[in-house]
């Protein structure tokens, strides 16, 4: 690529006195942006298919299974369908704002991918304020959604947009406070720095570092659900009351953008939790080749993220929607005070055990294992109660 750029410079494609460094930098930036875009957009689309299959199985249905093997190409068919539809702008809408809003939402979904720590050397920009950036940038979504709700000139859209704004801004606070315990322990805001402070084994994850961190991880995950308008916090697009909320008047590609951003943001929220609490890409150093090592780390990171994405689908298949007052009281009466207690508790903990406490880590890990085992026992009990055989078959 450098040779190709050199030949372009020699032919004077960039003016008489080009600066090679600037051109290389721009070319790399464009290439990386393209790669990320080409990863992020299909990912967000394929997740729609996975989600529909998971819900279907939770409801004892099969889900989309006609387009391609097991319906895998459903996302492609849906995408084409949306692109082929007419892009309607209502006559009374504020047309420029109406057209602009979906792009802001997608921008807020694409930007965090820049600091996603996929592997030890696979990160577009390891900002030293990475975690701050990743909490700040998705807040652009508020502007996009509020703009969409306002510009639609429709009461449902407006209520949806305002609910969304209230929700995202409220839950930013517990989410931010849930991040600080980790920052307190590591003393860095860089995504890679936080991951490097953890180990590959679960007892070295910050999830199990101390009880406060465990609670913080739960709060961060639930706040992530709320910020992405996921069930049980999908009030902004509550079908039964608001039609489709802020997306009511949208059609065609612009409608698709909103939902692509929503599903993509699931991954972002999961990646934040994985980075902060679940050890990120940490993988035991079993191979020498750095290239292979990076691949293994990438797989680890993606698997952890996909598991959390799966959990959020699972929650969507389980919990009903909360009321707006319940949502607000959950945030302000429960999450915010508990987050502050967590922050204080972690500060005291770090003062007492600056390098962590092995005994607590093991205790927390065994507590986590016990919870998982108890959960599995409950699952088996419920399956037995229905007198159904276990049927582990993900593709049917």
């Amino acid at each position: 690529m450098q040779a190709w750029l050199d030949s372009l410079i020699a032919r004077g494609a960039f003016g008489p006195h080009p600066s090679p460094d600037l051109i290389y930098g721009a070319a790399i930036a464009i290439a990386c942006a393209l790669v990320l875009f080409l990863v992020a957009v299909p990912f967000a689309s394929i997740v729609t298919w996975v989600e529909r299959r998971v819900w279907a199985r939770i409801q004892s249905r099969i889900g989309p299974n006609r387009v391609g093997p097991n319906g895998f190409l459903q996302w492609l068919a849906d995408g084409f369908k949306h692109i082929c539809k007419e892009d309607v702008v209502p006559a009374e809408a504020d047309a420029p704002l109406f057209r602009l809003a979906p792009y802001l939402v997608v921008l807020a979904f694409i930007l965090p991918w820049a600091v996603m720590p996929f592997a030890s050397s696979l990160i577009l920009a390891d900002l030293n304020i990475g975690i701050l950036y990743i909490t700040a940038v998705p807040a652009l979504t508020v502007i996009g959604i509020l703009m969409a709700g306002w510009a639609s000139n429709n009461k449902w859209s407006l209520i949806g947009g305002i609910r969304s704004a209230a929700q995202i801004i409220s839950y930013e606070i517990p989410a931010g406070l849930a991040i600080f315990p980790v920052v307190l322990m590591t003393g860095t805001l860089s995504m890679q720095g936080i991951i490097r402070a953890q180990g590959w084994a679960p007892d070295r994850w910050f999830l199990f570092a101390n009880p406060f961190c465990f609670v913080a991880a739960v709060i961060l995950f639930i706040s992530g659900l709320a910020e992405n308008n996921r069930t049980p916090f999908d009030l902004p697009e509550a079908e039964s009351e608001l039609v489709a909320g802020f997306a009511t008047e949208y059609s065609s590609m612009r409608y698709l953008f909103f939902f692509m951003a929503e599903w993509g943001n699931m991954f972002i929220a999961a990646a934040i939790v994985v980075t902060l609490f679940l050890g990120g890409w940490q993988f035991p150093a079993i191979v020498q080749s750095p290239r292979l090592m990076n691949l293994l780390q990438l797989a680890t990171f993606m698997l952890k993220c996909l598991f959390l994405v799966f959990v959020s689908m699972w929650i969507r298949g389980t919990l009903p929607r909360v009321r707006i007052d319940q949502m607000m009281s959950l945030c302000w009466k429960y999450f915010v005070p508990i987050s502050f207690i967590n922050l204080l508790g972690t500060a005291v903990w770090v003062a007492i055990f600056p390098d962590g406490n092995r005994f607590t880590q093991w205790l927390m890990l065994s507590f986590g294992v016990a919870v998982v085992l108890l959960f599995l026992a409950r699952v088996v009990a419920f399956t037995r109660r229905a007198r159904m055989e276990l049927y582990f078959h993900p593709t049917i």
Partner: protein
Amino acid sequence: MGAFADYFRHIRDAVTTIFDGMAVTASHLVRKPYTVQYPDRIPTRVQDTLPFRYRGILDVDLEICTGCLACDRACPINCIAMAVEKNAQTRELVISQFDIDIAKCMFCGLCSEPCPTGAIHHTTEFEGADYSLESLIRRFIVEPVVAYKPKKGPEPDPAIAQLLERGMHYVEEWAQPGSDKPPAPAAAKPSVAAAPGPRAPAPKPVPSAPKAAADGAADASPSAVESAPGAEPAPVPEAAKDKPDNA
């Protein structure tokens, strides 16, 4: 203190109920889906799994139609159009028109109830979608046919006897409410040649199985009881046995 205890009780309730709720949905996640992938990805056609008394699209066995017009008169919405004439020379009834408008039909079954031979009956077919209303009118007569005349004694033509047997089974079923199983093939075969006509006296009037007689044969028409010996008692106890499950 109460508010303080409530606060922690809320947290505990939220955690435990979500924990159990997630376990419930996870137990569904590992079960086999219930979906029947109608119409293509199913082991047997849906039509073949429906009960014998399923009220699908009407069909007429013209070979055993007596031309009595009972169905025409019984139809509450006049979707059956029949024309029957008497041939002056041969003194035979000739059916020249037998149309059923499936678009109008409401599948009430009142036409098959009075049919003496069971010629008009519901099938298990239900996929009747079409592009024009006209094509939904089923015309059973291409050229006028002579109406069936019940014989004294067994029916000589085996093909007609088979139709008659099936038809009489259909008629007979009205007398036994609750039995919705098709007759066992083994039981149906030996009676093909000996199937009695509607007005023909049965060779050996043996009462049907006691359970069925107690259930529904009290108000059974004579023809139904008479034709019972044709079918061996095997299917009846089976139907009676199924009853507690259905109830």
